[in-house]
């Protein structure tokens, strides 16, 4: 039995089963079980790379292995966190905003759990799919599976975020579908949209249609990935979703959308349009960095702050790929680092939200004294997300910059450094203000559940991993990263 | 100059006033009335020509010149049109642009004369006429361009005649162009659903209000010019649809005249079955005409 269909089937079936289950304990157990099974199956992929399944529709190359492992790991952490979150009163009594002072009954937990699992299944399908049509179908499925998750709190604000997310992403993804059809037009009559067939026949692709297709796919999947100026949905959805969902959106979903861009980049390289594709990526990357920097300065909502930081890091990923050479390796490593760190931060943000009951930066003080572990994680996350040593993000950003210097693209180097500095300063100002100082003496802290192990250990583990990878990259990981970079025409 | 075409031109100039009479008979039939005689417009014209003209003190020479310009432009435009079997009296590459501009010239004088009277009602009519024609003229021009593109000829005699390509390929194009031309015909001649020629409410009228101040021979000229215009648009429409038909000149002339009668009948039927559109809706109709014409162009872009 091939493992690939199983990877998709396990979460999907578990998701269906969760809908039927009545007792919360069983449901949560199933969520954890599916996450663990998925992780174990993925881990198996590191030992024996499974053979392609379904007549080559599903296959696992180095790129998919890398992204699948990230997704699986993050989901495992998120599953544990979600159980802790569902046990807390926060999930039952929705967060209250000062301006919208009413409570709503959240969506039944069953829908939440099964949507989480469907989300995982759809993301796995995206990552494993070798056919652009199937890829699109799965990508749209991730949007649909995650929309109810964002709506979990059922506040007017989350409703607004859900609507924007649904509409913007659906329209963006629709453009990607058009791009997929353009790709078929480029391949001519009887086109086979399997990645391998397209790579083999890349020389025969009509360059005009291919260019238009690449542009549309960049825009389409770039919308989903949150590249500026297509990022409009991202801050809203990330700030209004439950924190565990934000962690998955930012850490896993954005990566899967990025994979779509990587795939079309692969084809562009094979068809001799590498320069076109790389220029586009650099442009998108710089724009994202710039937009993120502008909105991070003086941001009043710390979850939105993290969302804009995601825009920034997606920009760095695009830049890395656009610069080519060694930067491709850096970009892939950065994707891994960003996922780990951003998931840590969003989960920690969830803990802060539970303790302070507000997302306003101005109302959070002295996190280190009120919630010591989360406060420390928040502080560590600051250094990790801004690319300070010894975290893995430092390593990857350094590799990307080094590659830019080596190809003497000084303009790009200066702009990146400048924007990164601006982002570092503004984020540090906000994060330090939140963690240090005296905690407010408000009744919120009295009702705060304290820090349960369920919600502290997952981010802690992810942060530790980001730290370890910064000082020691295991040989198998380096090998896979190199193999993946080679697929994308990088060294 | 093709002197054989003098015959059809003379026929057009003589028979043009028949079309409004025909339309009125159809409407009368639908309403269950006997209706005015077929030659009513001839009687009217004869009566008006015998009368004297009255001019308002505010009017200038523009007001007096306008009906004559209208008739002259109409007659010249008809000379550019091929009728059944024979090419037009005047034919040269690009003459379809001249056709559009001749109609524009007539409209320009009509509108100017209406403004010349200084009446607010006529000003209102003039503004509407200009507003609608701003949409109708492009549609007309684009439709002709589509035909030119499909037939490969820049002359009306060619593009309204037998164009290249086999019929099944060209049929959608011809139908689209014809649909656009039909809508333009209804607008340019102020028929239902754009304007109701029966009403004499100044607030709703288009064409009627523009000629409100004319009397005697001037009114006769204005009415005759309108009849010429109807014949002209009808002829373009008929030739668009039947230009590809083979046959001797006599047969083609017969087909052409039969086509014109059909157009008049169709206008009469439309007028009997439909109500006038709300004024703000008329541009929507004309935008649809533009869309049809544009589709015809696109369809003709890569023939074969």
């Amino acid at each position, binding site marked *: 039995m091939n493992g690939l269909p199983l990877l998709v089937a396990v979460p999907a079936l578990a998701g269906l089963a969760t809908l039927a289950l009545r007792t919360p304990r069983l449901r949560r157990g199933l969520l954890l079980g599916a996450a663990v099974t998925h992780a174990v199956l993925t881990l198996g992929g590191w030992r024996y790379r499974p053979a392609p399944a379904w007549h080559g529709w599903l296959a696992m190359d180095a790129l998919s292995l890398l992204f699948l492992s990230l997704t699986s790991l993050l989901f495992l952490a998120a599953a544990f966190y979600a159980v802790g979150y569902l046990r807390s009163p926060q999930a039952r009594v929705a967060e209250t905003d000062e301006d919208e002072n009413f409570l709503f009954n959240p969506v039944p937990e069953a829908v939440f759990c099964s949507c989480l699992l469907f989300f995982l299944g759809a993301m796995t399908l995206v990552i494993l799919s070798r*056919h652009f*049509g199937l890829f*699109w*179908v799965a990508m*749209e*499925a991730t949007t*649909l599976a995650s*929309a*109810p998750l964002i*709506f979990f709190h*059922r506040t*007017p*604000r989350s*409703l*607004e*975020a*859900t*609507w*924007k997310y*649904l*509409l913007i992403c*659906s*329209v963006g993804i*629709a453009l990607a579908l*058009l791009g997929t*059809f*353009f790709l*078929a*037009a480029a391949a*001519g*009559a009887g086109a086979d*949209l399997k990645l391998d067939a397209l790579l083999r026949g890349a020389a025969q692709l009509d360059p*005009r*249609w291919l260019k*238009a297709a690449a542009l549309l796919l960049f825009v389409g999947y770039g919308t989903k990935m949150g590249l500026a100026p297509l990022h409009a949905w991202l*801050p809203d959805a990330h*700030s209004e979703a439950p924190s565990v969902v934000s962690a998955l959106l930012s850490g896993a979903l954005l990566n899967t959308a990025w994979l779509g861009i990587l795939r079309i980049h692969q084809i562009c390289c094979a068809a001799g349009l590498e320069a076109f594709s790389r220029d586009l990526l650099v442009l998108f990357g710089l724009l994202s960095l710039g937009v993120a920097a502008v909105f991070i300065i003086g*941001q009043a909502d710390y979850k*939105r702050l993290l969302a804009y930081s995601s825009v920034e890091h997606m920009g760095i990923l695009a830049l890395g790929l656009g610069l080519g050479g060694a930067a491709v390796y850096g970009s892939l490593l950065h994707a891994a680092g960003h996922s780990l760190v951003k998931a840590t931060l969003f989960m920690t943000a969830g803990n802060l939200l539970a303790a302070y009951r507000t997302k306003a930066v101005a109302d959070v003080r002295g996190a280190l004294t009120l919630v010591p572990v989360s406060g420390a994680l928040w502080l560590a996350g600051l250094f990790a997300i801004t690319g300070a040593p010894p975290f893995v993000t430092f390593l990857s950003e350094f590799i990307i910059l080094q590659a830019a210097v080596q190809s003497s693209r000084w303009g790009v180097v200066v702009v990146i450094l400048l924007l990164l500095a601006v982002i570092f300063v503004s984020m540090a100002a906000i994060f330090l203000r939140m963690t240090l100082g005296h905690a407010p003496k408000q009744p919120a802290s009295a009702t705060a559940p304290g820090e349960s192990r369920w919600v502290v250990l997952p981010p802690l583990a992810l942060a530790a991993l980001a730290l370890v990878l910064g000082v020691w990259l295991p040989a198998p990981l380096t090998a896979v990263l190199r193999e993946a970079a080679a697929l994308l025409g990088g060294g | 100059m093709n002197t054989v075409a003098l015959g059809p031109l003379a026929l057009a100039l003589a028979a043009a006033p028949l079309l409004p009479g025909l339309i009125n008979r159809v409407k009368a039939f639908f309403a269950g009335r006997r209706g005015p005689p077929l030659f009513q417009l001839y009687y009217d014209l004869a009566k008006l020509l015998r009368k004297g003209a009255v001019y308002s003190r505010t009017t200038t020479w523009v007001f007096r010149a306008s009906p004559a310009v209208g008739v002259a432009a109409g007659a010249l435009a008809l000379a550019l049109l091929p009728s059944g079997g024979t090419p037009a009296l005047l034919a040269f590459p690009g003459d379809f642009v001249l056709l559009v501009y001749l109609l524009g010239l007539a409209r320009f004088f009509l509108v100017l004369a209406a403004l010349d009277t200084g009446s607010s009602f006529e000003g209102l009519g003039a503004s509407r006429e200009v507003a609608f024609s701003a949409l109708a003229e492009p549609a007309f021009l684009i439709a002709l361009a589509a035909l030119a593109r499909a037939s490969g000829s820049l002359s009306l005699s060619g593009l309204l005649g037998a164009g290249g390509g*086999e019929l*099944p*390929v060209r*049929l*959608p194009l011809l139908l689209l162009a014809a649909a656009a031309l039909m809508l333009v015909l209804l607008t340019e001649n102020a028929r239902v659903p754009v304007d109701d020629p029966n009403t004499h409410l100044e607030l709703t009228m288009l064409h009627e209000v523009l000629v409100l101040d004319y009397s005697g021979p001037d009114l006769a000229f204005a009415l005759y010019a309108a009849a010429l215009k109807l014949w002209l648009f009808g002829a373009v429409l008929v030739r668009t649809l039947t230009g590809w038909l083979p046959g001797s000149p006599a047969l083609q002339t017969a087909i052409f005249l039969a086509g014109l009668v059909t157009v008049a009948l169709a206008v009469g039927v439309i007028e009997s079955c439909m109500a006038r559109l709300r004024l*703000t809706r008329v*541009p*929507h109709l004309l*935008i*649809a005409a*533009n*869309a*049809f014409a*544009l*589709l015809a*162009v*696109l*369809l*003709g*872009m*890569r023939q074969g």
Partner: protein
Amino acid sequence: MMLHSLTSLLLVFLVLANLRLLGASRLNVCIRTVAAQGVALSLLPLLNASGLSLTSFHALALPTATALVKGALFPWLLFRALREAHVQREVEPYVGFTPSLLFGVGSLAVGGHLAARLPLPGGSPLLVPVALATMLTGLFLIIARRQALMQVVGYLALENGIFAFGASVMKEAPLLVEMGILLDVFVAVFIMGITVFHISREFEHTDTERLSALKDWSP
């Protein structure tokens, strides 16, 4: 050749549907129009197949499914949302109807211009322009109408345009993918319908202009 003309006729119908969508002031008219457009679309793959081959399962399955989903399920879902949400029946445009219609004609011209640069071998010359014009119309409706349901209609028009293009390009597309796409769009409309219902319940309106709590610039 006969098929060719029929295809052109269908495409002209699509354009007329676009114009109606742009010019209509009532939501229910728009919902019906976009459904009719979808049904017309479902016939396209039939005509595009080389000759009218109604024998194979594949050739019949997709058009039938498309017609059912686009012609029956979508209007049902949207009308249900319309009824249960008690929303206003006017589309509430930001951009007036006449400029909207002019945009529709302009989109056709843009489509023709782009099609001249991206030649597609075979098929009707109207196909690419009309497909692009339909997509642009959909995007325009999403931007230029306030009603949340109208944005769903715009999304459907966008999808219709893409489908029109895809049906002619992907002649031997795997059934799995086509059905997957259809299923995705169906679920998307389903979830959007539910969301519209919730929006109308929470806010007592479905005017998307007033969904503006989340933003970073406050004027």
